[in-house]
C-alpha cells in the first residue's frame, strides 16, 4: 500500500537535516506544539498559547494581521519596482512610464503596490478604531498603543514619500505643499524644510532623499517597531478579551464570594 502524504511528511521530519534546522522536534503533544512556536525565531514573538476565541474573526476582524499582509505585499512589489526605477530628476518620470507601459508585469506590480498602500492606510486606521472602541488600549497595553501611533505615523510618511517618486505634476505639487506645511513648525520650520528637501525647492536632492526614506529608512524603522508591537502583545497577556481580563475576573470572583460572606 502506498504511503499517505502525511506519512511522507512524518518521515521527512525525522531526517537528520530537518532535525538540524527545526530544533523543536516532531510530535503533536502540547509540549511539542508549544516548542514549535517558542523555539522559532519568527514565531517566538507571539504567544505560545492562544485562546481559540481570540482567533475568531469577530475578536479582531484580523485588521492587524491584514495590515501586516499589505506591508509584506508592499515590500514584495516594491523591491522589483526598484530594479527599473532611477531616482534622478531626468529619469524618474520616464522610468515610471516604462514600468506602466513597457516592463512585463510592470503595470501589475505598480498597481498592486499602489492599491496595497491605500489599503494599508485604511487598515491601520480601522485597526486603531477597533482597538480604541474595544478599550484594548488600556493598562497594561498603553505602551503598545503608543507603538501603534508611531507605526501610524511611519505608514503615513511612507505614503507621503512614495507619492513623490513618479515625479509627475501631481507628485511635485503635493510634495511642495506638504513640505511647506512642515515649514509651519515654530522656529525650526524652515530648517526642517531645507533638510527634508536637501535644498530650497523640490528638486533632484529632494527626489533622492524621499527615495532613500521610502525604500530604506522608513521600512526598516517600521519593521523595528512592528517587532516590538508583536512582542508586546505576548508580554501584555495576549490579545484583549474583556471576559479574560484580570479586573473582570476579580470582579466576578468578588461577586461570587460576596453572598457567601453574608450567609456566614
Amino acid at each position, binding site marked *: 500500500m502506498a504511503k499517505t502524504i502525511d506519512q511522507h511528511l512524518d518521515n521527512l521530519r525525522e531526517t537528520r537535516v530537518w532535525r538540524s534546522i527545526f530544533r523543536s522536534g516532531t510530535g503533536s503533544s502540547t509540549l511539542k506544539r508549544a516548542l514549535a512556536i517558542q523555539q522559532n525565531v519568527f514565531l517566538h514573538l507571539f504567544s505560545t498559547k492562544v485562546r481559540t476565541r481570540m482567533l475568531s474573526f469577530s475578536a479582531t476582524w484580523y485588521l492587524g494581521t491584514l495590515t501586516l499582509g499589505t506591508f509584506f505585499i508592499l515590500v514584495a512589489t516594491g523591491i522589483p519596482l526598484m530594479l527599473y526605477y532611477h531616482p534622478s530628476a531626468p529619469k524618474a518620470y520616464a522610468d515610471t512610464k516604462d514600468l506602466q507601459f513597457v516592463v512585463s508585469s510592470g503595470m501589475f506590480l505598480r498597481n498592486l503596490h499602489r492599491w496595497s498602500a491605500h489599503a494599508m492606510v485604511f487598515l491601520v486606521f480601522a485597526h486603531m478604531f477597533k482597538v480604541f472602541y474595544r478599550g484594548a488600549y488600556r493598562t497594561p497595553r498603553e505602551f503598545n498603543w503608543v507603538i501603534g501611533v508611531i507605526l501610524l505615523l511611519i505608514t503615513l510618511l511612507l505614503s507621503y514619500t512614495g507619492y513623490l517618486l513618479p515625479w509627475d505634476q501631481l507628485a511635485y505639487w503635493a510634495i511642495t505643499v506638504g513640505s511647506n*506645511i512642515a515649514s509651519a513648525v515654530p522656529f525650526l520650520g524652515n530648517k526642517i524644510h531645507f533638510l527634508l528637501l*536637501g535644498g530650497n*525647492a523640490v*528638486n533632484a536632492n529632494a527626489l533622492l532623499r524621499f527615495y532613500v526614506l521610502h525604500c530604506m529608512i522608513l521600512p526598516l524603522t517600521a519593521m523595528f517597531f512592528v517587532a516590538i508591537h508583536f512582542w508586546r502583545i505576548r508580554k501584555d497577556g495576549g490579545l484583549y478579551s474583556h471576559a479574560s481580563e484580570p479586573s473582570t475576573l476579580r470582579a466576578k470572583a468578588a461577586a461570587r464570594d460576596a453572598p457567601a460572606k453574608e450567609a456566614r
Partner: protein
Amino acid sequence: MMDETKTANANDQVNRRQFFAKLGLGSLGIAAAGTAAFAYQFLEPNVLYEPSPVIDAGNPDRYPLDSVTLDVNSGIYIIHSQEGYFSLSAVCTHLGCLTAWKPELGIIACPCHGSKFKQNGEKIEGPAPKPLPWKRIWLNDDGDLLVDRSTDVPPLQRDSFVRV
C-alpha cells in the same frame, strides 16, 4: 565594596572605579554630541545645484502696457503697469503652489486652495497669510529686465518700479 562606595560618597570623593565609569560615560556623551553635529552637517548640503535667483526677463518691449506675464519656469510675474514695470512672485504665500493670472477676472488666483490676489499682489481672499511679495527688478546694460527672486522690495514704492 558597598561600604567602600558609601565612604567614598560620604567624603564626596570618587574612587577609581567611579572615576573610570564617569570618564567613560563622559567620553560617550562627547562622542554622541559630535555624532549629532556630524550628522546634522552631513545632512545639510553645502553646495546647491539650484537655478540662479536672478532671472533675465528679456527686452521690456516683450511686455505690452497693462499686461501681466507669468514665467512658469522661474515663478515670477512681469507686470507692465502705468507706473512702470514691476515683478511679483508667482509662488502662493500659503503653501507654495504656482498661481496663475486670470485675464477675464483681472486677478491672480491659486489653483491649490483658492487664494486670490490683486494685480499688485494684495490679497483679496483665501488662506494665503501674506500678499505676493514684490521682487527687485532693474535694467542691465543690454537693456534687458533682470529680476532677483531672492530679494523682496516694498510694494508700490517708486523704487520698486522700472521705467523705460
